[in-house]
């Protein structure tokens, strides 16, 4: 008997049991039987165009294509008969008849599927006379070339662009023999909506699409992408000790081989970049001189010793570093330097999530997993430009949309998702509590709330109900600028969909009331019971590859690893016992507080690992003052960043490709890194540097490898108890919480009960941003990231291709404002706030609203954070990056 959902069939005499949903091609592949094909792809819908995968099936007419024929019980399939061979050979002859014969000079020579297929069929001569396909070579894209004379019209590129990425930059035009893959209007691909994700290039069987700097690697090492929090699997291609390229890792459960432009084309050039730091640098008389490791570390130990136990030392850990390194860094601060002054850039992105969701639910992380977005019936996206900043998560949303999900976007900017949304509400920046309260009020007034969920699983509902009562549609519309009708539509759709998922990012968190925003979203989800089930929940998308892990492992001033409060005596005792030293009980300073304290002379020594506050933090002039006021600044990084240039000592570290360890992605999934290369020069992994330093400060740290560090960390971190390197190496796919070594991990949080017991409603009043536009500074500035660069550009701006696409800073300006100011696209603007002034090029676009300005913060030469307001959220201490008041004028006489 076959299992339910399975069928048995015979292929070439081999009995196979497979899923009833499989195609004959899938079944054959599973049984190790080769069927030739050029157009079939695991991740794309069947196309059945090349016809090479035809088979003979008993009781079926003709020669059905195996890629588009479903298996059936008792089916008898033959894949390799003389007739099939004859037909396939004829097909190959047809395909070859219009293919240029320049194999020796071709980028895909020896890697071309058409070439392999010709060999398979033993084709040695061209039987049909030559028909030519005419096309112009398109070299306009920064990363790949398009030569449509080599196209076999398998349409994998077109389908990948549509089915995986979703931008549909290319399509087939013309028909029959004159079919050709083109961007809209047949212009250069660089002028199309192409996002250069390379899903097409990856799939092209010939050199119709080829990578410009293609070097075929000798071996590939599977590891995790170093950019955003999605945690995509990448294969680093290595040849002669150098990384020569990146491919998606199909075995990675998050990305399944899919990548964005940064991951595929921008994640390796920086690794072997000549500007990498190779030796420790000591500043002597204002100049850096190279030093040996013992010299550098002895010096550092000497300088830090006086600050032990005095809370005048602070450390910045890094969301770019591994879990193990973050664990060690916080241990270093706490056990060696006896201070809780440890923080990292999560403070700047999702501190309000960590604080807010922990208070509302008991866990400050995504409540559901990434793949679940595909199954949502409604997705409410707010404050997240997902398709640019978490592109692979963007793919999942696009998948959901194709399956018919409703998308509601609340965003001041017309992002790609806003443009595609069922409902796009353009709220004024900083009015989130108001619209969320407004939705809750409508839901309650219309009786759409989930009464059972509220009564059984939550507390504090009456207070919430009282508070939201004044947020009438009229009142909310006045505050937020969102039309009343849209508020009704959004509220009804969100509440009534079977599975509604909230997805947000820094548009929600980076406010002086970020925690309020986050908790308001938590309120909304709980009122409707849209949490604790598959494809629902409240889902913050974390910005950095390991920002989740850095928080989890305690690189925060108020908590030990696992969010265990330093102020809690019992918990502190646990760590004192484990680490064998007494520990400080009062929470330390957060990033912005540290830099303020430095400016005030209260912090004297700062140890920065893998962060660049001189570009990433608000009010950069003030940051610079703080850094310059320090007695001793150490920066440990892979490049001489803007911050490192101010340091007294610079330590060269290994990048992600040069070390082992784990990253935790935004859905709490812990993934292993694999070392692909040795670090350049004398650079060392961060964990080794910390250990050697600790030794010198009288607290020996000795670990043979990161796996051992994790062994120590996981025992102290309840969420990570069951997560070890050996389990991960064994193929376990683990999302925390994972309480023991047999536990499979958890995709969905708060299923039967909230982590804190009952979900907590928080009654919140709308307060508004700390700084609003006025006569003097009439514009609202929004800052953020873009698809083609990452964070402070330390890594992406080493990529020639990414720089070709976006070479420098710019400000998005609405055409209405541009017209008033007589500004044209590309004109230089002078943008000033109360804190400073920068010059950037104007990009005139309706993406931003009238009176608003958007500037990405990646660029040192037009650093948006010179302008931003360091006003802090009172709970999470996150600065208000998303709203500040600026004035804009055309920079006279400059282009």
């Amino acid at each position, binding site marked *: 008997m076959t299992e339910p959902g399975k069928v048995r069939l015979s292929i070439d005499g081999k009995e196979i049991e497979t899923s009833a949903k499989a195609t004959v091609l899938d079944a054959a592949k599973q049984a190790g039987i080769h069927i030739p094909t050029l157009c079939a792809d695991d991740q794309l819908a*069947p*196309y*059945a*165009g*090349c*016809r*090479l995968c*035809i088979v003979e099936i008993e009781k079926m*007419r*003709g*020669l059905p294509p195996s890629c*588009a024929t479903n298996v059936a019980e008792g089916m008898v399939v033959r894949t390799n008969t003389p007739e099939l061979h004859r*037909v396939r050979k*004829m*097909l190959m002859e*047809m*395909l070859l*008849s*219009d293919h240029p014969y320049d194999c020796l000079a071709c980028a895909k020579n020896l890697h071309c599927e058409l070439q392999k297929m010709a060999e398979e069929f033993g084709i040695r001569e061209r*039987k*049909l006379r030559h*028909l030519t396909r005419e096309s112009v070579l398109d070299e306009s894209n920064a990363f790949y070339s398009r030569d449509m004379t080599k196209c076999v*019209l398998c*349409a994998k590129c077109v389908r990948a662009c549509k089915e995986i990425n979703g931008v549909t930059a290319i*399509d*087939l035009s*013309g*028909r*029959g*023999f*004159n*079919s050709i893959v083109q961007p809209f209007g047949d212009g250069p691909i660089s002028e199309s909506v192409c996002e250069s994700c390379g899903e097409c290039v990856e799939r092209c069987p010939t050199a119709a699409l080829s990578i410009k700097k293609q070097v075929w690697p000798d071996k590939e090492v599977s590891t995790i992408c170093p950019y955003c929090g999605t945690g995509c699997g990448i294969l680093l291609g290595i040849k002669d000790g150098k990384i020569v390229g990146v491919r998606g890792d199909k075995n990675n459960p998050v990305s399944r081989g899919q990548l964005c432009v940064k991951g595929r084309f921008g994640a390796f050039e920086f690794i072997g970049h000549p500007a990498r730091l190779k030796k420790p640098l000591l500043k002597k008389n204002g100049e850096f001189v190279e030093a040996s490791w013992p010299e550098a570390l002895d010096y550092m130990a000497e300088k830090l010793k006086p600050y032990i136990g005095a809370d005048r030392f602070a450390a910045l850990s890094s969301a770019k570093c591994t879990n193990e390194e973050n664990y060690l860094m916080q241990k270093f601060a706490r056990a060696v330097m006896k201070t809780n002054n440890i923080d990292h850039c999560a403070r700047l992105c999702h501190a309000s999530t960590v604080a807010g969701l922990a208070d509302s639910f008991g866990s400050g992380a995504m409540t559901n997993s990434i793949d679940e977005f595909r199954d949502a019936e409604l997705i409410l996206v707010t404050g997240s430009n997902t398709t640019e900043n978490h592109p692979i998560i963007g793919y999942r949303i696009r998948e959901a949309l194709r399956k018919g999900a409703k998308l509601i976007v609340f965003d001041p900017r017309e992002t790609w998702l806003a443009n595609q949304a069922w409902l796009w509400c353009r709220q004024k920046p900083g009015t989130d509590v108001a619209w969320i309260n407004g939705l809750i009020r409508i839901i309650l007034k219309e009786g759409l709330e989930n009464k059972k969920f509220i009564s059984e699983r939550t507390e504090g509902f009456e207070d919430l109900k009282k508070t939201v009562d004044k947020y009438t549609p009229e009142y909310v519309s006045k505050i937020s600028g969102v039309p009343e009708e849209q508020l009704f539509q959004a509220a009804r759709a969100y509440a009534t969909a079977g599975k509604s998922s909230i997805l947000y990012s820094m548009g929600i968190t980076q406010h002086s009331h970020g925690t309020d925003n986050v908790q308001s979203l938590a309120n909304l989800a709980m009122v409707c019971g849209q949490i604790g089930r598959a494809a629902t929940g409240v889902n913050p998308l974390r910005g950095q590859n390991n920002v989740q892990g850095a928080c989890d492992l305690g690189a925060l001033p108020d908590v030990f690893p696992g969010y265990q409060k330093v102020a809690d005596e019992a918990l502190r005792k646990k760590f004192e016992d484990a680490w064998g030293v007494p520990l400080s009980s009062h929470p330390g300073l957060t990033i912005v507080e540290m830099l303020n304290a430095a400016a005030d002379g209260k912090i004297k020594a700062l140890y920065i690992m893998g962060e660049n506050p001189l570009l990433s933090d608000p009010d950069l002039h003030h940051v610079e003052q703080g850094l310059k006021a320090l007695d001793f600044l150490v920066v440990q990084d892979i490049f001489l960043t803007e911050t490192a240039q101010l340091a007294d000592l610079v330590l060269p570290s290994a990048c992600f490709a040069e070390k082992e360890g784990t990253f935790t992605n935004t859905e709490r999934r812990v993934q292993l890194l694999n070392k692909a290369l040795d670090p350049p020069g004398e650079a060392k992994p961060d964990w080794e540097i910390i250990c050697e330093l600790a030794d010198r400060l009288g607290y020996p740290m000795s670990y043979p490898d990161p796996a051992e560090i994790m062994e120590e960390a996981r025992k102290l971190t309840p969420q990570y108890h069951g997560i070890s390197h050996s389990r991960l190496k064994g193929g376990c796919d683990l999302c925390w919480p994972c309480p023991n070594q047999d536990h499979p991990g958890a995709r969905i949080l708060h299923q039967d009960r909230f982590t804190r017991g009952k979900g907590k409603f928080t009654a919140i009043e709308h307060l508004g941003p700390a700084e609003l536009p006025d006569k003097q500074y009439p514009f609202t500035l929004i800052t953020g990231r873009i698809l083609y660069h990452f964070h402070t550009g330390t890594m992406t701006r080493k990529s020639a291709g990414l720089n070709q696409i976006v070479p420098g800073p710019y400000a998005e300006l609405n055409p209405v404002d541009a017209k008033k100011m007589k500004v044209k696209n590309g004109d230089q603007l002078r943008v000033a706030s109360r804190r400073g002034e920068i010059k950037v090029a104007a990009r005139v676009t309706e993406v931003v609203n009238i009176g608003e300005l958007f500037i990405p913060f990646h660029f040192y030469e037009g650093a948006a954070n010179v302008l931003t307001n360091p006003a802090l959220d009172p709970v999470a201490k996150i600065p208000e990056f998303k709203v500040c008041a600026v004035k804009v004028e055309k920079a006279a006489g400059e282009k």
Partner: protein
Amino acid sequence: MNEFPKILSANWGKPNSAGIETYLASGGYEAARKALGMEPAKVSQEVLDAGLRGRGGAGFPAGRKWTFMPKDNRPRYLCVNADEGEPGTFKDRDIMRFDPHMLIEGIIIACWAMQANNSYIYIRGEFEEPAKILEKAIQEANQKGFLGGKIFGKDFNLQVWVHRGAGAYICGEETSLIESLEGKRGNPRIRPPFPPQKGVFDQPTTVNNVETIASVPFIIREGIPAYRKFGTEKSPGTKLFSVSGHINKPGVYELPLGYPLMNFINEVAGGMIAGIKLKAVIPGGSSTPVLRAEECQNVNLDYESLAAAGSMLGSGAVTVIGEGTCMVKLLEILTHFYAHESCGQCTPCREGAPWAAQIAKRIHEGKAELNDIDVLSSLGANMMGRTICPLADAAACPIIDFPKKFREEFEAHIRNKGCPQAKPFPVEFK
């Protein structure tokens, strides 16, 4: 016109035949009123029992096709295929030009039978005049309350939309038609799922030819025996034939099915032009196998007789080919058409059709070798049944048959190093 019974073309000669008043005067919309008083399933059964077969080419029983629509609550659609584009076929055009209300009444009945509330008439882009006539007729029907809400007082509403194609023959294939209707490139869909499961906008859909639907009102109004009075047992009723080629009176004729082909050519259509002899007939549109003159002698115009002769009734487009026609040139022209109209998805069609056209041209120009005839045949064999949709089959048909049935002529071109005739066609058409 002839003395044969008129079902489809009854109103064609009348003044203002396309107007609703003319149609009403001839008992128009009575069938729809009657149908809406019947159980929907009963309507399908009547059409099935009348033996009405699809007039687009495939000849599938229309009533049965309607019963494939799933019994669920999804919205459902009737698509009327008015993308008449096969060389030689021009019968639907005249239904739409001269009696659009007969089609609209058929749509009402079919939609009632399938409980569809929306119907699209997908009309060939070049049919600008028929499209305008249809739109006017729909407007008239709406004004009279035959379309819209509460038709004949029933809780049934129906909207009919005219959708003009953009000039691709492939969109006459039902799944390409659906893709095109959705605003996409007209490529065929892989089946299964078939349109009744997943058609327009992924909803249950039936696609019927114009003539098929236009035949329905008579069946409902007059009853099965009245319909079965015409035609043969297995091919009941009448059919429109569009005749073209070397014939004295080309045009559209309504005949009872089963009418002898030679009588049609020699009597009804006025005989061969300029007294030349008959060489061959393509009896059902260019995608049906060609018959040599001697094969035509005892053939009747119905599904079974033509199938027995090795061809098909197809769309009823009879192309009459006179002696003195170069079959190589004709093949080149036909194959060029299919190469031009292939969507390009399947290798055999995309590559095979232009290859065949090129070889036919080469043979005609005397630049070919004997071996090219075999390459032609093997190309045809590799196209037939090897693709997603039947366009390649249609293209392959002449590629296979012409060299087989007129091998002598093909070989003569090669021996002669060119066309043995001074001009490829015996008569110049204007």
